[in-house]
């Protein structure tokens, strides 16, 4: 069977050559950075609007991987990203404190809203604050779709439930539905089962499958949704493209970048409000 | 690839014959058992260096099995196969139902030349010779498996010739062919024998054995009952079984 070994080896060598071919374009694109970010920002279309401007200014191509805030920070801590744009301040500060990121900057904000079926069976529309709104949903045992994916939105939702007497996770599987999915997927599920959901306004405005759902509660300062940008720390990740990451961060925080964010509109509505210091 | 020729048999060497001559092929007590039945039951034979040996006998006598055992295609339980050094390594077998590759006639023969280790630069000329020998010029580019049975058997014959065999084993090569194709195959068999190859021809066709054979090996129940010249076999068979077989009375 000595000759058979050669039969096996040959394809493996050929396979290596094929892979090398497939790899070629990726290697050629050295002037690019990976942005670990959130589904809410990507689904809103913000990146498709501002990244071409960034590339035109700096020549750097920013490639966005959109996952939940938790996964984005984990991926970046694994050195699989050069910069993160996420929205969960405590987790971001921990990320920097652990030495994974250099420095956190406020970037922009919008707000969270509670959407739900227009009939509003839990009567959240008339609630004076968000804690009351959530308590009413729990009392009415009205369906509520939660991301339950450790994303920024999910972390905020958990923090908001903390301020109520309700224990939604204990009710998981009954009126409280943990989707384990991204923002859009969770909204699709909420539409399908006439459930309430907490979402960021940007995703909601650009979401095209609203069905019978509408905004029922908004405006509580506790619903402020602050986004931050953090370059990954080159001391933790030697392979990180620190210059590109810094250029990206600087541009986002610059007047140009902030103006680009402010200029993005869907159906005439501004989705993100720049607030770099 | 465990069943190479001779791998499962005990080596032995035949003693030289009266004139000091060694046989082309010697079988010593070949036994093949399957499911408790002795299909070859101590088959012993010495086949002369040249000419065409017809192997005859009723169905189930073990004729085809013996050819496969000689080829090493099936393991034997005991016994030995010996080949003269001049034929060992140049043995080819043609089956009753040829299996041709799913390619053109030309590609089938080219494949055989490659398998038999013919140097690449010699192949085109050899290929042309084989096609001509088989009378396949007009069929060379047809898909081999689209040919008639007789045409396919011609391809199988010249494919065996690609090995330049010194020992050619034929397992009822004309069993299901019409007279015209039978004639073509018989011509190829004679050509091989005249070219110096030792031919062992399993056949049920008395007329064919008459036309082609120099000597006849008669098998019955996995044993060699008679091995004699063609004329003696047909005119004065010794065993009662051979007489019954020639009379058409021995079917098993």
């Amino acid at each position, binding site marked *: 069977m000595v*000759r058979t070994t050669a039969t096996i080896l040959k394809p493996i060598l050929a396979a290596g050559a094929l892979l090398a071919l497939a790899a070629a374009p990726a290697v050629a694109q050295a002037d690019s950075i990976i942005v670990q970010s959130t589904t809410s920002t990507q689904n809103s279309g913000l*990146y498709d609007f501002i990244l071409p401007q960034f590339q035109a200014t700096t020549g750097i191509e920013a490639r966005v*991987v959109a996952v939940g805030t938790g996964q984005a920070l984990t991926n970046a801590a694994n050195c699989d990203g050069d910069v993160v744009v996420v929205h969960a301040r405590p987790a971001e500060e921990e990320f920097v404190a652990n030495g994974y990121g250099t420095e956190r900057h406020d970037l922009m904000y919008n707000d969270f809203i509670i959407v739900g079926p227009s009939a509003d069976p839990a009567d959240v529309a008339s609630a004076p604050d968000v804690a009351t709104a959530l308590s009413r949903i729990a009392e009415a045992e009205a369906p509520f779709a939660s991301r339950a994916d450790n994303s920024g939105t999910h972390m905020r939702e958990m923090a908001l439930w903390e301020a109520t007497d309700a224990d939604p996770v204990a009710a998981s599987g009954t009126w409280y539905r943990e989707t384990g999915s991204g923002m859009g997927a969770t*909204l699709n599920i909420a539409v399908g089962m006439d459930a309430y959901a907490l979402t960021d306004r940007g995703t909601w405005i*650009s979401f095209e499958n609203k069905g019978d759902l509408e905004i029922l509660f908004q405006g509580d300062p506790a619903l402020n949704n602050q986004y931050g940008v953090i370059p990954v720390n080159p001391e933790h990740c030697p392979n990180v493209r620190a210059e590109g990451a810094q250029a990206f961060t600087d541009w986002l925080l610059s007047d140009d970048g902030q103006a680009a964010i402010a200029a993005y509109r869907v159906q005439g509505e501004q989705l993100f409000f720049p607030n770099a210091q | 690839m465990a069943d190479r020729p001779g791998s499962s048999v005990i080596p032995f060497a035949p003693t030289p014959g009266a004139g000091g001559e060694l046989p082309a092929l010697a079988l010593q007590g070949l036994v093949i058992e399957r499911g408790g039945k002795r299909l070859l039951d101590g088959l012993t034979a010495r086949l002369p260096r040249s000419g065409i040996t017809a192997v005859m006998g009723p169905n189930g006598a073990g004729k085809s099995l013996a050819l496969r055992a000689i*080829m*090493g295609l099936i393991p034997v339980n005991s016994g030995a196969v010996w080949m003269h050094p001049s034929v060992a390594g140049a043995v080819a077998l043609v089956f009753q139902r040829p299996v041709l590759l799913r*390619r*053109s006639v030309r590609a089938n023969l080219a494949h055989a030349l490659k398998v038999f280790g013919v140097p690449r630069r010699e192949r085109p000329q050899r290929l042309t010779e084989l096609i001509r020998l088989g009378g396949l010029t007009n069929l060379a580019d047809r898909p081999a498996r689209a040919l008639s049975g007789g045409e396919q058997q011609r391809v199988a014959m010249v494919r065996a010739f690609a090995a330049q065999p010194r020992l050619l084993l034929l397992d009822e090569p004309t069993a299901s062919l019409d007279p015209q194709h039978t004639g073509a195959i018989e011509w190829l068999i004679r050509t091989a024998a005249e070219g110096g190859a030792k031919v062992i021809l399993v056949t049920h066709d008395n007329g064919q054995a008459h036309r082609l054979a120099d000597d006849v090996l008669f098998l019955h129940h996995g044993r060699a009952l008679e091995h004699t010249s063609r004329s003696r076999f047909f005119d004065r068979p010794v065993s009662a079984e051979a007489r019954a077989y020639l009379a058409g009375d021995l079917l098993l």
Partner: protein
Amino acid sequence: MDPFSSAFVAALELIASLDPNLLEVIGLSLRVSLTALALACLIGLPLGALLAVVRFPGRGAVVVLVSALMGLPPVVVGLVVYVTFSASGPLGPLQLLYTPTVMVVAQAILVTPIVAALARQVIADLNVEYDETLRSMGTSGRMTIATLVWDARYSLLTAALAGLGRALAEVGAVMIVGGNINHVTRMMTTAIALETSRGDLSMAMALGIILIALTIAINGAVMAVRNGMERRAYG
């Protein structure tokens, strides 16, 4: 307009407009999946042939394993490939994460068992017919495998098509290792997932219709070629 009609209209509009983004996404899908299929065939066909032809201890177990791996969950493969190619993983220094190359790797892992298992079956069936003839010719192991693979080529095309179908259809693995980066690693399936999460269901369905139409077209073309050539080779 109901969602199905609007999806069909959107699909037709997309195709008619030759939308460059659409072409890019289709192009990447084809490039990644076809490269993965080529890799899978390079490894899977000889592997299947070996399993069909060569007897060795433990062969039965390997055959069962390869068949079982046909059902590898894409998301698990994606995860394993992600961990392997992550910057903190063993192959991190190659810096291939979030590139088409690593998507090819993940899909090749998914497709190879399919090609190998189906090839083994096809070649084993053919070997039943060819075995005595090839052995009587003293054919070497390597030549036996080459002969069987070549003569089974039209049946093996079906195995390859099954593998391609799997590659073109899966989303779990390429989403994780590719990251669904616009203009870089966005394929048909990840674009469909994205449009779905954007709530743009008719765009998602339109892309789905195009993907299915593409798959049907590829299968149809290969089958037509196969039938024509097979008739010429087998008669």
